[in-house]
């Protein structure tokens, strides 16, 4: 006989787990960021802001997210439309599309590093084609935009599939009749997508965007592999302060900034893609 307490009892292990391994470290980090010898202080944030690489790290992180996430969204939507139109082989194509998901971000960075480095595939190919005679240094500190582009490529290659999977699942939830009704009432393919599919996809789009944007702000390993320290990003600097400079307080301040940006964007998405009451599928 299940009692009223049973659901709570069943939720207890997960709740304890999250409290111990998430909430506890989180409060610890927050405390680190705001505490000094004389109690609560903002001095670590001052140290962070005054650090000469901070503006570049903030700018690069935001720019990367702004460049990567919309592109990924558009690509994931386009791919999802194509995939859901298929009658045969749909699953196979989905599996292939999602292969990069199984690769860690560091591995992804290394793969693209192997392409772009001085003795890499890109130079070999260009040399074989006779375009260049000596290897080009693509990822040097003089050409930051190439590093930026390489990171973009690596991110898009690796992490678009997670959006695709969420969006394909979301599209599967939209009854076929809505598209047919739109078709009968005069909507062409683009209008059907724009005026029916896209609005009905809001919940999935919201999930996909939140997930992807948060991960974009945490970009680290690809940047490390492709740019070393030539393209500073917030996560890289957090790592740098924690382990190279052994300053846990300032590292915690960086972490808090990343968290704040993530929360900010999550709230923005929740608001922009809100489904009014009674307007869900």
């Amino acid at each position: 006989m299940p009692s009223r307490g049973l659901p709570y009892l069943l939720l207890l292990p997960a709740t304890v787990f999250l409290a111990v391994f998430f909430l506890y470290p989180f409060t610890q980090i927050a405390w680190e960021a705001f505490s000094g010898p004389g109690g609560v202080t903002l001095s670590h944030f001052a140290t962070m802001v005054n650090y000469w690489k901070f503006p570049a790290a903030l700018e690069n992180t935001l720019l990367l997210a702004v460049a990567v996430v919309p592109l990924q969204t558009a690509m994931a939507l386009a791919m999802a439309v194509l995939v859901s139109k298929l009658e045969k082989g749909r699953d196979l194509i989905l599996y292939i599309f999602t292969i990069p998901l199984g690769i860690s971000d560091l591995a992804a960075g290394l793969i693209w590093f192997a392409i772009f480095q001085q003795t890499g595939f890109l130079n070999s190919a260009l040399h074989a084609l006779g375009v260049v005679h000596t290897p080009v240094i693509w990822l040097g500190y003089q050409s930051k935009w190439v590093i930026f582009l390489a990171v973009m490529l690596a991110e898009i290659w690796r992490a678009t599939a997670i959006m695709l999977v969420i969006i394909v699942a979301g599209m599967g939830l939209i009854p076929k009749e809505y598209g047919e009704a739109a078709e009968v009432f005069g909507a062409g393919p683009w209008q059907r997508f724009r005026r029916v599919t896209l609005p009905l996809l809001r919940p999935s789009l919201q999930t996909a965007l939140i997930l992807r944007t948060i991960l974009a702000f945490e970009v680290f390993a690809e940047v490390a592999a492709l740019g070393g320290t030539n393209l500073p990003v917030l996560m890289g600097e957090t790592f740098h302060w924690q382990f190279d400079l052994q300053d846990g307080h300032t590292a915690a301040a960086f972490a808090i900034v990343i968290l704040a940006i993530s929360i900010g964007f999550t709230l923005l998405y929740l608001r922009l893609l809100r489904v009014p009451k009674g307007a869900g599928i």
Partner: protein
Amino acid sequence: MAEIVIKGVAKTFGAFTALHSVDLTVADREFVVLLGASGCGKTTLLRIIAGLESASGGEVWIGGRRVDHLPPRQRGIAMVFQNYAVFPHLTVFENIAFGLRMQNLPMAEITRRVERTAELMHIEQLLKRYSGQLSGGQRQRVAVARALAMEPSVILMDEPLSNLDALLRLEMRAELKGILAESQTTTIYVTHDQVEAMSLADRIAVMQGGHILQAAEPIEVYRNPAARFVGAFIGNPPMNFLPANRGAGGWEVAGLPVLGPESGEALEFAVRPEDLRPAAKGLPAHVKIVEPLGPHLLVTCDVAGHGFRAILESDTSVRTGDLLHLAPLEGRARWFDLATGHSVPV
């Protein structure tokens, strides 16, 4: 003017044939109901006319224009879907306005038409709501209003009332009939509900196994079914069927000589339950169940080992176990070929 002409339309899904070369002409402003059990091909035919399904063969003409190669939006039709397909992300106003916006009509005209149709369907107070805040009946009204707002020459309806509860269905049925008659559209309406078909249609096309068995006025379909299936499908309770044997002097049914057709080898005798009366000379019927239904009695009997039902006057005195003699009313007995199921004229 929107006459619909269907010429030899066929549809196969792999090895399954959903429609065998169907022909049907629907006159301008006519209300035709496609009636049949599920899987008979009626919805497939409607979807082919709408352009949501492509035919494997044949032609579809609407208003003198061949449309089978055109997408739905270029066919000049409006449609009401079985599950309404009222867009959940749009308000009732925007749902009704959807097709009008697609035509890029001026806003004033859109507002005028939305308000007019909303009033017609008695949903003017719901215009700002979303479909999630509506009842099934209200959603149904929105779906019809959305179709009417297009002022289409053709409206296609796919089981529009099947998701409503019985009382609401009755109410909507009468309302639909009035509204559609006034809107002067050509209507094709799909249903599996024979009462709905009888009450709404100018003409009923009864379908089975991908064929149209009979397309005629409701009373004609009811009185003179062109096929055994039609007689068995329409009418509640359905027609009674008894095997007939050719005796020495003519046809014999359950041992009783009956005047039948000249031609034919193996025939079946059929009569509607309400066309039977107790008589001195009639089919010997052993009464199994007597159900007093108020206006009349429904009597279930056994005639020569076959189930047989009669609807008798409510004051008839009959009890379980009685032996009745039931005779068909003059001119109401029907005959069907046992092999083909086609009706055989007397």
